[in-house]
Structure formats: structure tokens, C-alpha cells
């Protein structure tokens, strides 16, 4: 009996830290989302308005636009990063010094500060002196008149580019670890039986990689849905509202316009979206495993 209760005492210090910094703000924000509160007008929380903030969000055209923008960003960034990450992991899946060295170098973008990444790429894509601008235009892949962050399609492309540059190493790291757990004997046996490399990938490697892939997809999706720092530094949601993702919209409502109740409701809608996505992933991917 004492041994069972001992466990609770051991986790108590961690709970005492976790509750005020994590649980309390979550509960408080949830409560706030049911109130009308403009901080410019009053320091005290306003009236209880029920689901009015949530209803407002669902009919708000700005919310709809930013939700769509977020969808586009998440699907493209996660899709491209998974494919690229898998491809590069397969290429580096050899036990040689050179391959190990490359894996270590590739992790560098992932460990850099996102705000620094945003500022750096802003300079790299500057149409007057940016190195990336020069390189792309030199190859005649794009016209000379393109202003990367001033064009709606290119601004999203630049945002995706920087995100892919930062997060693909994370995919490589996770998927390499997953690949190393695929039994070599299975691959060898398949090879002896005449399976091509594509068949090996499709029928052996990928099915065995699903648990790892699931983890990578879930983590990257969460980060992509919440993405704020790069868009804040690179585009501020512009041009117009072309890159205004949900996190940036929520930030504006809460910390520029100080509509605290509405911003809390937006934040919780983001949480609901994430819960739905993660549940979907888990059901699809882990049902396959079973």
C-alpha cells in the first residue's frame, strides 16, 4: 500500500511546478474564452458571454482565411518534409564515417533559433542584395521582377522553403533512427527472393517504419499548426493576409488589439484542431500497424 502511495509523493514536486506553469494557464484561458474582455477598456475580466467568442470566430472571415492559410502551409510543409526526410535517410542509411558525418552536419538548421532563421532568410531573399534572390534569378527559374516577400504566391513559397530547410533535418534524425531498427535480415531475404528496391521500400521498410513515421508526422504537424516565429519575422502575415496563419491571427487579436476573450477562444480552437488531427493520425497509422 505504502509502495503504491510512494509513487505519488515522488511525482509531487514535478506536479507542483507543472500545475502553475501549465495546467493553471490552460484552465484560466479556457475560462477567459467565455468572457468578453477588452484590456484597453478595463483591467478586470468582462461579462460572461457563453459561446459568443467561438461563434464569432466561426463566422469571422479573417479566421476562415487564416485557417485556410494554415491548412495549406501544414499540408505542404509536412508532406514535403516527410518525403525529403525519408529520401535523405534512405541515402544516408549506411554505416560509413562519411554518412555519419553528413547526418551530424545536417542537424545544424534544426538547432538554430527560429527568429534568427527568419531574419537571415529575409536578407537572403531581399530583391536588391539577397544571395538567394541572385542565385534563383541567375538560373532564370524566376523572372527578374519577382519580389519574394511582396508576391502572395512567392511569400508562401519562401515561408515553406525556410520551414523545410529547418525541419527536414529533424525528419532525417527521427527516420534514420527508425530505419536503423528495421531488421537487416528481412531486407537481405527480400533481396534474395528477387524484390526490387521499390518493392523493398513499399512492402518492408515503410510498413515497419510506420510507428516512427507516425511520431514524426504528429510532432511536425503540431509545430506547423502552431508556427508563429518565422511568419512573424519574415512576412508579418503579408502581403495582404496571404501568409497570416492562425497563430499570428490569434497573437494579433490578443496582444495588438487586446481582445483577450476572443483571443482565448481562438487559441482553444487551435487546440481542438490539433486534437482532431492527432487523433486522426493515431487511428489511421496505428490501425495499419495492428
Amino acid at each position: 500500500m505504502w509502495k503504491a502511495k510512494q509513487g505519488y509523493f515522488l511525482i509531487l514536486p514535478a506536479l507542483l511546478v507543472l500545475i502553475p506553469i501549465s495546467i493553471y494557464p490552460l484552465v484560466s484561458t479556457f475560462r477567459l474564452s467565455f468572457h468578453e474582455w477588452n484590456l484597453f477598456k478595463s483591467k478586470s475580466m468582462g461579462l460572461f458571454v457563453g459561446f459568443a467568442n467561438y461563434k464569432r470566430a466561426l463566422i469571422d472571415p479573417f479566421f476562415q482565411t487564416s485557417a485556410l492559410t494554415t491548412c495549406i502551409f501544414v499540408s505542404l510543409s509536412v508532406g514535403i518534409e516527410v518525403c525529403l526526410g525519408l529520401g535523405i535517410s534512405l541515402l544516408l542509411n549506411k554505416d560509413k564515417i562519411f554518412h555519419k558525418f553528413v547526418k551530424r552536419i545536417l542537424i545544424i538548421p534544426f538547432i538554430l533559433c527560429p527568429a534568427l532563421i527568419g531574419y537571415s532568410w529575409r536578407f537572403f531573399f531581399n530583391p536588391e542584395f539577397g544571395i538567394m534572390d541572385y542565385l534563383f534569378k541567375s538560373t532564370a527559374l524566376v523572372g527578374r521582377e519577382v519580389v519574394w516577400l511582396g508576391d502572395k504566391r512567392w511569400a508562401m513559397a519562401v515561408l515553406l522553403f525556410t520551414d523545410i530547410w529547418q525541419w527536414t533535418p529533424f525528419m532525417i534524425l527521427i527516420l534514420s533512427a527508425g530505419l536503423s531498427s528495421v531488421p537487416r535480415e528481412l531486407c537481405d531475404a527480400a533481396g534474395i527472393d528477387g524484390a526490387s528496391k521499390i518493392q523493398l521500400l513499399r512492402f518492408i521498410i515503410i510498413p515497419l517504419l510506420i510507428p516512427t513515421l507516425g511520431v514524426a508526422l504528429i510532432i511536425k504537424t503540431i509545430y506547423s499548426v502552431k508556427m508563429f516565429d518565422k511568419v512573424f519575422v519574415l512576412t508579418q502575415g503579408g502581403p495582404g493576409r496571404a501568409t497570416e496563419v492562425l497563430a499570428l491571427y490569434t497573437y494579433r487579436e490578443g496582444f495588438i488589439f487586446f481582445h483577450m476573450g476572443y483571443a482565448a477562444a481562438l487559441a482553444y480552437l487551435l487546440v481542438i484542431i490539433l486534437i482532431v488531427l492527432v487523433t486522426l493520425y493515431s487511428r489511421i497509422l496505428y490501425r495499419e500497424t495492428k
Partner: protein
Amino acid sequence: MSTQQMYRKFGGMLIVGTMIFALSVVGYAQTEPPFYLKSDKPFAGEEINVLLHISDAFRAVEKRTSQFEKLTGIKVNYIWAPYPVLHEKLIAALIGGKGKYDVVNNVDTWISETANYTVNLQAMIDEDKSVQDYPEILLKMCSFEGKLLALPNRSHAQFIFYRKDIFNKLGLEAPDTWDDVVKAGKTIQQNTDLKGIAMYYGRVSPTAMHNFFIWYPMLRGLGGCIFDENMEPIFNNEIGVKATERYIGFMLKDKITPIGSVAFDEYGAALSFAHGKSAMWPNWEYAYPLFQDPERSTVVGKFGVAPLPKWKNKPRFSSVITHALSIPLGSRHKEAAWEYIKWASSAALQKELVLAGESIVVNRIANLVDPELNTKFNNLFKAKLESFRMGGSLPSMPEWAEISNVLSATISDIASGMPIKLALDKAVEDTRNIMKRAGYYK
């Protein structure tokens, strides 16, 4: 009486007279302390925290703080914030109310937002006549619902900076109208490798909505407005469309802007001028020290300043903005803070900084008409006073942050190719929704 006695008597009278005169001068000096600060140092030993945004003008004030500290015995600590994050820092500190700052850098368009959290300075200004020497518009901009909530410190009107050397070489006059800007821009592009005018249509920061600073005087200059008398947004009418066509036309129709204009903010465009890539840059005169700084500019001594261009046969209109100093309600050193504000905003300090070449910011009437300052800067300050009299400020209302966000996104959309009427109609609809939610319409 012998001659000797007469000389002694005269000498004695001279000495006494000199002493009386000297005492009266000292006494006079003691009743009129420098900068109108309290003479007996009643706040000596207090320490105040001052939140300012990073700028040449405020840095110049900081350099002279030892002067204030000697005169008052008040210690000053400066906390600096980049302008794009000043709004958040300011609002968080004011709402927190824990007396973190004693003086804060406010902006005229934020006065209404911060009205519940800053001290009404009317009583202080009524008592202290020294701080009434402002153009009427500036005190109005720092007031909300009849209360004076900040004292103007840095006030700006709009001008156009232009490459005087190139204009002279090509036989061009300083542009007086927007049509002159286009003519000059095209001539310059045909004859040099510079771009005509560095405009800035980008959406760069949530609070620094630079991209409509020139659109607004174009709208007002034509007789247009953002709202009508019933607070209905009307900037999508014929006047609004014409003003917007002219504004965006520099880039889309006349093609006299640098390629980066679509994404530039005010500072990015200023750098295009400072680095000798563009021949004109329109906006606030505060950029003068940037263009005169050899470490940051290649156009030192090569540029001129002219009043902001206008529409042909229409009166000139310049936007006016003011950075002002407020005292948070939570400050525990309000009176010491007021002493600082008086000193930092004083005519004497302003003049000192301008003559030293460290600032060009002048907003006290005495300085705006000062012959010495105007001679040094070719009557720039007289032109500024005229702009204060003829111009106007952006709307000051608690909803302005949201509305300016709509306007900024709209300008950015138009610059990226959205049809003007469609974009303005949508912006008017969004603005109406904001006003409706705020309870302006029944």
C-alpha cells in the same frame, strides 16, 4: 568734504550697488531655474525608469541626462525598445500597473487605448505655464475625452527628401505636386541608374503601419476622409479610389519605385534613399540625421528637403504624428517623472540638440520660428509649423489599432495586384464590422 572722502564715499556706494545688483541677479536666476525645473530639488534621491523607443532623437536626450540629474538630484534609468515592439511593451507595463516605469513613450494614435492607464497631465500643465508653448494640434493629439494624457516630445510633419545634386544636374525643381514627382522620377530614371522614389507598401509590423502614411495625406489632400460625420467609413468613394490610384501608381503604372517597394517598410525605403539607390523619399523629417550620418548614408550633403507634395490646385496636407511622454497611473514617482518630462520636452534642450547636430526634432513654437534654427536648416521648421497648422493627425480612437491593421493589409493587397475598388470596398466592410462591434452604430 575733501576729495579723498568723496572718492571713499563714491567707492563705497559703488561696492554696495554692485553687491545689490549681483544678489538680485543670483536671486533672479534662482526664481527662474533652467528648464523650469523646481529649484529646491524636492525630489533629490528619487529614481525613475523611462521607457523609450530606440531613435537618434531619444538617444541624444539620453546623452544629456547628467545635466538633468545634476539639476534635480533625480536618477534616471532608461529602458529601450525597438519601435515595432514598443506598443506591446507599453500596454503590458501600463496594464500591469506595478509602477515598472515612471515615464513612457506614448504615440498619439495610442492615447485613446492607454487613456485608462495614464495620468491626466492637465493639472500639471495648468500649474506650469512653461509647457504650453505647443501648436494646438499637438496638445489635441495627446488628449482624449478632454484629458491631456501625454506631453508632446517628438512631433513630425511630412516632407519629401530629394537628391538636390541630381535635380540640379538635370535642371529639375524640387517637386511641388504629385505630378512633379512622377515627371522628376521618370527623368531621373532615364538619365541615371537611380530609381525615382522609394515608396513603401509592405506590411511589416503589427503596430508600425507605415504603408499608409503617404496614402493618408493624398486622401485628405483631395478632400477625402476615413470616416464621415456619422463615423461611417467612406474611403472607398471616388476620392478614395483616386487617391489610392495615385499612391499605388508610382509603382504599378509609372514604375518609378525600387523593386523592393512592394515589401519595404518606412526604414527600408529610407535606406534605399540613404544608400543612393533612389532619388526621393517622402515622410517624416526625423530621418534627416540618418541621411547626414556618413556611417549610414552615401548622400551626406547631397539632399534637399521640401514640403510634402500636393495635388495640383489643392491645398497642401501633411499628416502629423507625435511621440509623447506619459506618466503611468502605477508610477510611484509621478512628480519626479513630471520634472523629467518638462526637461526632456523643453525648448532649450530641443534647440541645444538641433544646434549640436544630434537631432532635428523641434515642436515648441519658440523653436519652430527661431531664426537661428531656421537659417541653419533652410526654413525647415517654419515649414513644419505651417504643416502643423494645415495638416492633421490620424484618427485617435480605441479601435484604431484594428482599423489601421485593415488599412495596412489592404494597401499591401493592392500593391500585390488586387483591384483597387474591390480592395477598398472590402476594407470598408471590415471597418464597418469593427465599428459595429465597438457599438458605434445603433
